[in-house]
């Protein structure tokens, strides 16, 4: 028989072998989400003409051959508040507000994308950077065991 590895949550009493799985932090008998790759970077957002906007796409090749779980975050390079991808950050550019959106894409089983964009052509001219971080998991979002 194969051995098992269990670890339980701090302050949970009892024999780890008898606990509900949710009280174990490590459990070799069930699948735990595993980080396959993570990364970070900055993307320049620039509105170069009146009545325009900007869209920046970052391709991330994971080459897993299936669709993995994903999580990502972004913030203004000049700020300290991080938000999830997808979501939006509104900030002042001069005296006008602009909203920067983040999103993700799954164009193939080997590539994930990060998307950053604005949608208002009426907003101010801007030239800023957004910082991002992401995690791509080993585990597929379909039929993980």
């Amino acid at each position: 028989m194969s051995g098992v590895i269990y670890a339980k949550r701090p302050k949970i009493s009892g024999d780890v072998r008898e606990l509900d799985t949710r009280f174990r932090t490590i459990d070799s008998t069930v699948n735990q989400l595993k980080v396959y790759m993570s990364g970070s970077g900055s993307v320049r957002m620039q509105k170069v003409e009146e009545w325009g906007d900007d869209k920046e796409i970052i391709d991330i090749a994971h080459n897993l051959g299936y669709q993995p779980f994903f999580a990502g975050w972004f913030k203004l390079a000049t700020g300290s508040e991080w938000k999830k991808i997808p979501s939006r950050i509104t900030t002042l550019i001069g005296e006008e507000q602009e909203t920067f959106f983040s999103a993700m894409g799954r164009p193939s089983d080997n590539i994930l994308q990060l998307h950053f964009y604005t949608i208002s052509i009426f907003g101010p001219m801007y030239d800023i950077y957004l910082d991002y971080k992401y995690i791509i998991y080993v585990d597929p979002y379909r039929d993980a065991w």
Partner: protein
Amino acid sequence: MRGKLIASRQGYGALTTEPKNLAFSSEFELNKIAKIKGFTADGSVNHGFNYAPKFLAMKEISSSPLKIGWGGIGSVDNQKIYATIGSHITDFSYDNQTSADDSGEWVIIFADNLSSGSFKKTIKGPIITVGHGNNDYNYKIHSGYDTFKVFHTGRLTVNAPEFDNGEGGGVQITTATYNHNLGYCPFFGPFVDYEVSKNAYYSWNGQYNSNNTWTAGIIYHIGEDVWLEDTGEWFTCKVTHTASNSNRPTTGAEWTTYWNEYVEPNVYNTYVNKLEDIKFVYGGVEEFNETFILYYVTTTQLVLQVVQSQAPDVWLEGDPPYLVYEHTPCPAETVYVDYTIFYNKINEELDLISD
């Protein structure tokens, strides 16, 4: 050579199987869930680190019955977790659409960092760690923090029949459920918002992906659509590249390496997992019949619902009044999701930073 710590799914060789068949491995980091914090109003609390931690946020749609879904509006900085209570639609009818505030938000905080800083918790009792470093986030595995553990996976399919409630319009809700019976609300995937307007999704993503007229010199990313000015034909990029005459759709010698002919999406067969890629665009959404997709958990079930909202006949005042929109049926449609349910409980505060 350093040792390895690997555990695999039963029946699979730990040293030979694909990583996705492993329970865990010292080759792959496990997220370190440090804290779960519930909010019932907008607000902030200290998270306990001196750096911005990775996090997830879920919305509690209602507390009784308890319903939780993705789409929480949280954020973090180097000191605090910020929560903003969102809202959801409660009446989907065309002429009386109403919303209500969510009953709460749950924010999940990892020890893993987004910004620089330091933290190492005091260890009480035996633990398992893999890796080394001055901070807990340096460890690949740290049993002092929780991990996401898969409970069950499967597919839910909703086959919503055609809906025609006549000139008055109306709402039809069709539901598919999986009984997890855990007795609490578990984490689940995919991480798709609780409530998605299908019309907005297809309209906005279609507009967003459209990169208009094919132009030499532009970088086209996989998934973007272009049209040819001379023929009006649409194409979808399949390999990110810089456009040139050699890869121009239909006339470039290598065009089939870079482009597929555009295929209209089947808007009556929707894969919920795909909705993670939603984009926002101003306007362009049909205003009459509409379909919403709801995806959430209760303490006993994972729920997928299709809400078909049929617009009634719309008359404009006049003498005599005149019909500007005549009702049409909501077509039958299929919506399906490949789901993952985890053992982890959402609706309970957790603090593994100080424990």
